């Protein structure tokens, strides 16, 4: 078994960045699996990419603008229909500032 690329603290840190609560068991499993997967990525380092432009998108579409026209949008009822917690005309969430 190669040395693992990620530590437990690394996994917890990434999970925090991703707003993902994971259990202690998951931290262990993810540490092992993610380290294994990341090890396979190291092959890219063999390739010389000096001066090669990155591809974000494979077609030559550039920023596309359209006219600013009024279009039908969802009404309030439709917008709120899927919200788990609704209070009157609002979506209810837990306190944002403690």
């Amino acid at each position: 078994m190669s040395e693992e690329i990620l530590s437990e603290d690394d996994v917890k840190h990434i999970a925090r960045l991703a707003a993902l609560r994971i259990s202690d068991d998951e931290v262990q499993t993810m540490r092992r699996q993610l380290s294994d997967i990341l090890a396979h990525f190291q092959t890219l380092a063999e390739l010389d990419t000096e001066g090669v432009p990155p591809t974000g998108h494979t077609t030559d579409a550039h920023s596309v603008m359209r006219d600013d026209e009024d279009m039908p949008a969802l009404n309030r009822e439709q917008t709120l229909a899927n919200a788990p917690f609704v209070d009157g005309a609002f979506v209810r969430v837990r306190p944002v500032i403690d």
Partner: protein
Amino acid sequence: MTDTLKSTYMSARELRAAYENGETSVREVVAAHVGRIRDVDGEINAYLSVLDEEDLFVQSDAADAHMRDGNASPVTGVPFLIKDNISTTGVRTTAGSRILDGYTPPFDATVVSRLKTAGAIVLGKGNLDEFAMGSSNENSAFGPVINPWGDNRVPGGSSGGAAAAVAAGEAVVALGSDTGGSIRQPASLCGVVGFKPTYGTVSRFGLIAFGSSLDQIGPIARTVADCADTANVISGRDPLDSTSLDFDFDFAERLDRDITGMKIGVPREYIVDGIEPGVRAAFEASLEVLHGLGAHIEETSLPLTDHALAVYYIIAPSEASANLSRFDGVKYGMSIDGEPNARESIEATRGEGFGAEVKRRILIGTYALSAGYYDAYYKKAQQVRTLIRREFQDAFETFDAIATPTSPTVAFELGAKTQDPFQMYLSDVCTIPINIAGLPGISVPCGLSDGLPVGLQILAPQLGDRTALQIAHAYEQTADWQLRPPSL
């Protein structure tokens, strides 16, 4: 075969002919499909929801009206399954995830509204790997799909429900999505045809996003012609998807041209170490057939193929980690209540709502994009993506098309790869490079190995979709197995 079963195993073109000759009606065909789903889907689990009878009758009558008025299209009255990461107004859309529990889209994806306008019948929504992440359909929160060709075999993924339903006579055509092979690989494993068009030819509006620079919607069907006809209906520039392309061609227009003199390259890197002997034999036999049809077959090399998997598993999870940040339990879907603050509530909801593979990919993507690692992973992968694109562009200077196996293996057993994520990722080794380069690709059945289907993949340059379809169609005409129903 009974008459009812026969109508559920027709191609869309055969079905259209039967409508035009007055041999059957839309209501009759829709009823046969509902019956078929009721009879076999308990075993297959291809559908996550089926529309109720009343809704199906309304759709059937609309299709009949299209035909009466002389407005029939190639999909009018044709029963479709829609993969459940494609939004359908008023019909639950799950993306195979618990996190969308209770969510019903208030709008249709552009592909769905185009199908409806053309008179197609939407039967229901298809099972998939959660958020289209997987190669076996075992990552669905609603249980795996079983391959109609074999006991205890996976259908492939992530459009496993789509491919299995077409193979099992539960739909005539299905819409899937393909980010790294999710249309072509399950089509290969289920013995049906799967077509991923050039990136940008089909609008992604209403497709629940996974890897936005890779995702593409396309058809799974029993014939190449049905794939081409469906692509014609769902494709085209859409103001709601700024990456959709303006182009003007008929996907079906070259189907009947012969392929004499066409140059087809066979890159040796796609005969990977783990390829099964039966898959290799079926693939090599299909090359003989193409040669017999007049094509020039020549071995070639695409050395960067070996790096495509790493590029994909950096770029796709990076894009996914951003796309899936929207699932926070605030505006829709499941939500864990009772946490002290919004941050904790979001973390708890995502921790409960996402399955293991989705979490793995969010974490990989977040890591690859995080400070200090961005250059080594994400930027590096994007640069190698450029090199892979160039390698394909160079190959298409010499060749009209490229032929490869679609999958190195036939359908494997449930559970065979679930403990080792990287082994599962290798299932897509032949399909992933195509998404990286934005190319069109099609998988067409090319025989059986140990009684399970093998797929031949044909690739073409960007917007060369007609070439891929033409070659696949020519090949298909020589084969006799594509409509053979599995013994259900």
